[in-house]
């Protein structure tokens, strides 16, 4: 267990090439450097097109990286072969934004939560069943619900299934790509509380992608603000909120409706 942070990203660059022979390149990430301590949450904040989701999929190895290094638990993971990276996956998992799209509608909840175990070679059926039951209980889903199909659940419950699916392998790092943005505020609160409680119980490390600064402040120990592929501000959530240095962050803070005028009108 090296003393270094669990996840360290240094000078990450990424560009997409389109057109004939990849002539015109669009640079998405410019020298992104971040790190997340064990059991901590790094909030990655930015508007659409800021590169925050690209950073997440680079960390997960879903998209290739142009240059720069990503070290996970002290080990460089950008140059790994496909099979090496697949083995690594059991210790880093991801939860997606759209509760409807991220679950295969043909699988029951049990099969969805059990699949990661099958993929990573847990042969013994009863052991798998035990793990699944434990994880479902962890996210507040009953045994009875395990036999039903995803379309029978509300958005909030589906996110719980997605979280169970990510936790059943008890990973060290969970990348959360806008996990609550598609949910109503009252349901958002339930899921955010669940994520906080799970982090404390299982000492998970979160890379938390979000466009809402308030959610970032609530959930994160550290916040990085990204704008057009660059990290424009990076510090503890206290510093980013109270001693805001970069004008873009200020603009983001001021843009939140209903905060400037204090309480109500007249």
């Amino acid at each position, binding site marked *: 267990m090296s003393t270094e942070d669990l996840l360290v990203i240094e000078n990450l660059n990424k560009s997409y090439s389109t057109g004939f022979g990849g002539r015109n390149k669009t640079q998405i990430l410019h020298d992104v450097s971040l790190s997340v301590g064990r059991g901590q949450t790094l909030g990655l904040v930015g508007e659409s097109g800021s590169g925050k989701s690209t950073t997440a999929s680079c960390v*997960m190895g*879903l998209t290739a990286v142009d240059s720069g290094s990503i070290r996970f638990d002290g080990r460089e993971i950008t140059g790994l072969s496909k099979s090496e*990276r*697949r*083995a*690594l*996956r*059991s210790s880093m*998992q*991801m939860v*997606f934004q*759209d509760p*409807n*799209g*991220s*679950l*295969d*509608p*043909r699988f029951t909840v049990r099969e969805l939560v059990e*699949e*990661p175990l099958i*993929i*990573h070679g847990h042969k013994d059926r009863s052991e798998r069943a035990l793990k699944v039951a434990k994880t479902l209980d962890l996210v507040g889903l009953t045994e009875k619900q395990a036999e039903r*199909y995803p*379309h*029978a659940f*509300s958005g909030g419950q589906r996110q719980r299934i*997605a979280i169970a*699916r990510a936790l059943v*392998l008890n990973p060290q790092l969970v990348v959360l790509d806008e996990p609550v943005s598609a949910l109503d505020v009252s349901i958002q609160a339930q899921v955010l509380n669940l994520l906080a409680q799970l982090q404390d119980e299982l000492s998970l490390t979160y890379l938390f992608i979000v466009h809402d600064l308030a959610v970032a402040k609530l959930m994160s120990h550290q916040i990085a603000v990204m704008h057009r592929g660059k990290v424009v501000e990076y510090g503890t959530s206290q510093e980013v909120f109270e001693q805001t240095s970069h004008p873009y962050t200020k603009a983001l803070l001021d843009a939140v409706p209903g905060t400037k005028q204090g309480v109500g009108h007249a």
Partner: protein
Amino acid sequence: MTLSVASVRATQQRSNPIAVFLKRDIPLSIFLGLFILLVVGLLIGPWLWPLSSDAINLSNVLQAPSAAHPMGTDDTGRDLLARFLDGGRTSVFAGLLIAVIGAVLGCALALMAGSMRGWVDSVFTWLTNSILCFPAILLAMAIAMAIRPGVTAVVIGLSLHSFPWYMRTLRSEVMRLYGQDFIRSTDAIGAHPVRILLRHVLPHLIPTMILQMAAVFGASILSLAALGFLGLGAQPPTAEWGAMITDGQQFFLTGQWWIAGFPGLGLLVAVTLTTLIADRAREVLDPRSDAV
């Protein structure tokens, strides 16, 4: 609009489409019932209808439809109902064969092209486009000339055209599926690409493939009959609806309509039924898709 409508509609759609197929749609069940009736009738026809399709009987030539010969007799006195049943079997059997061969081959190619992408995809697409330049009938005709006219030549020709057609339509479906989040999430868990292909992509292709098989089945029956009509399909004395229409062609204009009439009607009913079934099934499967 409000999410409430979408979420309520989603809860009604059980995940298993076959269960939805029959329960909710009366016309679909009727068409499906009629079609099964037709196919079963063709298969067990010979046992129910004693007359043989080849028995020439010069004493009752060109008989109009009667109790003895519900579909009348042709210019050599052969019973046309018996020939209709034989002809129908040829068509249905050949149609199924072409639909299945094309589906299996086309789906395999589509899965490979859709998952591997890169040069594999471009080569398969090039291969598909090169073959799909030719109408199915023209291909079958060329093959009939190249080897020997007959049902085999037609089945080869039509399968040659049907597998690229499956490949082209299923490939775009595979591409769409790979863009879905639940595939990326399974990939993020570390699933092997083959597992993703077989456990997640293929099951979602099945409904689309079944619909396309129905379309290819109908089109193949028509093409088989068309080639029979041009004298390139089934050769005499085998009974085949297309060839029977050619035999009845000259009698058509002199009043003996039944010789060419019934086989044509058989074709019309069989193929229209498959199209209606495919059409209704697509509607039930995904009411919003309105796909062609």
